[in-house]
């Protein structure tokens, strides 16, 4: 009887339904918690561009949320640097923009969130602008956040993350030692052209005199190239926004 086709089919159907219900039930119950965890992780990454990883690790989830709320304001711009408040009839907030999804669209159609790091509770006292980055590494996606000081030129900090770079090689972009190399570098050259910051091939050289170059990661040149083009692309997409902030500050300084 157990070998009959009818029995096998019935058995399979029942098993599938039971397991399916179990899984969808779990997903329903845990869904809100998972979304919370993901949102928290995103906030940690954004904050990682302006404060050190150790400081963030020492904070409890509530503290991270509180710190984020009191220090980060956000806006969304398009490729021309114009503020976007709604798209297709739905309100747009920077936290809800999915960079990975936007990456699949043509650059002109994408939404570009900007996170503004300001003094505690005072959104007018801007300390740096945090811009998201997204691109391709050697094996899979890489992404991150870069913080620009208010001169819109000096890099205040960067966080980098990856989906599947080689552990010990390309995966080192997540190490604070590698990310520290970007601090203080400049993205515009003397004539005002956007050149971004380029990670070099090879490791162990001193690039402290060159504002547009950082030391590379030995054995991870392709990941390094991915980081370079990601930086160049996204800073390029944000260029209109960056220039507008630059000129408004120049005006403010003139007064």
């Amino acid at each position, binding site marked *: 009887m157990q070998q009959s086709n009818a029995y096998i089919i019935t058995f*399979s159907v029942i098993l599938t339904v039971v*397991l399916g219900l179990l*899984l969808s039930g779990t997903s329903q119950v*845990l869904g809100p918690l*998972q979304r919370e965890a993901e949102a928290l*992780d995103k906030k940690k990454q954004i904050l990682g561009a302006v404060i050190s990883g150790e400081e963030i690790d020492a904070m409890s989830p509530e503290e991270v949320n509180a710190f984020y709320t009191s220090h980060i304001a956000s806006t969304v711009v398009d490729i021309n640097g114009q503020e976007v408040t709604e798209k297709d009839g739905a309100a747009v907030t920077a936290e809800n923009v999915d960079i990975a999804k936007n990456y699949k669209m043509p650059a002109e159609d994408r939404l570009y969130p900007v996170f503004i790091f300001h003094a505690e509770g005072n959104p007018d006292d801007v300390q740096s602008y945090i811009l998201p980055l997204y691109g391709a590494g050697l094996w899979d996606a890489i992404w991150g956040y870069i913080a620009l000081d208010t001169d819109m030129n000096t890099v205040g900090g960067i966080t980098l993350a990856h989906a599947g770079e080689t*552990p010990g090689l390309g995966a080192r972009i997540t190490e604070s030692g590698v990310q520290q190399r970007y601090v203080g570098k400049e993205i515009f050259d003397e004539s005002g052209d956007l050149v971004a910051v380029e990670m070099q091939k090879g490791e162990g050289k001193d690039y402290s005199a060159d504002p547009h170059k950082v030391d590379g990661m030995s054995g991870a040149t392709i990941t390094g190239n991915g980081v370079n083009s990601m930086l160049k692309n996204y800073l390029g997409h944000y260029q209109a926004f960056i220039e507008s902030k630059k000129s408004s500050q120049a005006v403010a300084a003139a007064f």
Partner: protein
Amino acid sequence: MSTETVEKAIEKKPAEALLSKRRKKLITDPLVDDNPITIQVLGICSALAVTTQMKPTLVMAISVIFVIVMSNLVISLMRNTIPTRVRIIVQLAVVATLVTLVSEVLRAFAYDMYKELSVFVGLIITNCIVMGRLEAFALGNKPYDSVLDGFGSALGYSWIILTVAFFRELWGSGSVFGIPVFDYVSGIFGPDFKLATNGLMVSPVGAFIILGLIIWVQRTKTGYVEH
């Protein structure tokens, strides 16, 4: 004396002790003599991949223990109803469900671990130890015995990957469970005394070397020879 024999006659089969000698063997055998990694050489992939640090390794070990024990239990409970022709796919469905549960729970309650272990939690499905125990044991044995057997195999797997992770993290990153041991040692002997970490230990090659050494030591001790 006589009353005892009468009682036995009524019961026909006396209940086996909860942890009889035979059952203890189910747990202890896979720890050394029949270890899934060092003797059967199964589950090597994850043993290499997740063992750069102790913390993710511990989470991985707990996940594997949960999956093996639970799948052994479920399959053993169903063993008389599973049609033989589709048994592998049934086992796979049960294991896959359990693994997805583990991964969902990690994602909700330990997101950092979920990110770090990423694909390797999902890959527990393909861990040969899990399916191997289902095929070899749970399909033909009672639930309680199967649970013990699964627990034993999972422990055998866990202590090996934890040992590998201990040495890889110590020599590769100079720490144990994230505590910077090397820095403390350097602190004792003054600033001129620096313990160097070995980059080889961070790469999967390091796991091969440590695992090889463990197998060597173990086989020298037990005198196990491959046939």
